[in-house]
């Protein structure tokens, strides 16, 4: 539990104020929390559970069920490499290798400066433009390992604000 660095409660207040305090709002709230904090902080989940009157175990259960939620702090920019069949064939592995060489992290890890988190994901449904690399919210089709610097710089600029 990372109670050591308590999360800023400000964004949470705004999020909780935007939805009715009932169980049905849980996933929407978790999505907004994830967007605001880039992960689901432990103390924030406790506040969400209390406000909605949902048991903490249920909130944790939902938070761990969906791949879209992370319980670990993540980098400012999330880099996803699609490793679906088409992307795999067209060189997703090279993208992963190159990312590891450039950023020094394996899939699922975050750079020490909290700049980037690298993940591999299964098919994102854009097989025609394989291999696909997603940096922040931008999809790069026919991604090339040689162009990684450009992709990362653009993603970093997007996520800076």
């Amino acid at each position, binding site marked *: 539990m990372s109670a050591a660095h308590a999360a800023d409660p400000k964004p949470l207040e705004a999020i909780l104020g935007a939805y009715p305090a009932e169980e049905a709002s849980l996933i929407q709230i978790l999505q907004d929390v994830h967007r605001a904090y880039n992960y689901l902080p432990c103390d924030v989940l406790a506040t969400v559970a209390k406000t909605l009157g949902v048991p903490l*175990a249920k909130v*944790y259960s939902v938070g761990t*069920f969906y791949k879209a939620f992370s319980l670990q702090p993540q980098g400012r920019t999330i880099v996803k490499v699609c490793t679906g069949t088409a992307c795999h064939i067209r060189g997703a592995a090279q993208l992963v290798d190159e990312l590891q060489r450039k950023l020094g992290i394996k899939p699922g890890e975050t750079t020490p400066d909290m700049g980037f988190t690298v993940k591999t994901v299964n098919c994102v449904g854009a097989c025609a433009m394989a291999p696909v690399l997603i940096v922040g919210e931008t999809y790069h089709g026919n991604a090339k390992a040689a162009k990684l610097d450009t992709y990362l710089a653009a993603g970093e600029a997007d996520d800076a604000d």
Partner: protein
Amino acid sequence: MSLGKEMGTQAGEKGGRMLSLSVDGKSVQVREGAFVLEAARAAGVEIPTLCHHPALEPYGGCRLCLVDVTRPEWGGWCKLVIACQFPAEEGLLVHTATERVVETRRVVLDLLLARCPETPLVQELARRHGIEQTSYVANPEPTDCILCALCTRVCDHLGISAIATVNRGIGREVAPPWGEAPPDCIGCLACAEICPTSCIPYETSEGSRTIWGKTFEMLRCTRCGRAHVTVAEADFFAGRGGVPRSYFELCDACKRKEMAATFVKLSRGAAGFSVGA
């Protein structure tokens, strides 16, 4: 959504209409809103289950209670459903031992045995269905948990919800939030006692009990001194109302003794009258 509503109203109309259906050729009557499993049991037909408990909502987790259902007007077509969650219907024909049912159930048991290769309950059930060894790759990290969720459901049912299933897919397990001592747990052992494979570890020793990594102080029976419930459990149920805190002063055995003594006293007091005449 609409189905849930419909079923809700059916269940709400308890004592209403009775439905007649047939299970393996035996005709049986159940109240409206009952599920096929209940009908089968009323007909004396045995259907194996692992996640079913009469005190809890049907869950449909173990998939062992598969049956074939059909209707005369379906012209021989039938569908595979789970008996615990399929509502009984007037005129429904249920077949619990067709070749398809037996085969599918064997696949389910085979998979369950692959997950829990060392669990006696699963081994026994599999053996009864003719499976000595799983045909899949046995779990290299054998577990006794069959993910029937009886533990989490009973915890919810008591209004505690200290544990839940976490993660998904092969990583799914029953755990408290963040794997740490659950703040809401009252140490009542309902989860450990309902577990069909007894795979939830706990320890009750002199004056304390540990479960899910949380240690509880025990309340001792004021008569025999046995540590019988956790202080947290007594506080929880007394705080919720229904029973006074003093209810937990005596353990169950001493309560029975006291009750027996009361009966003796009453019968002696009433000795002048002829009881039972």
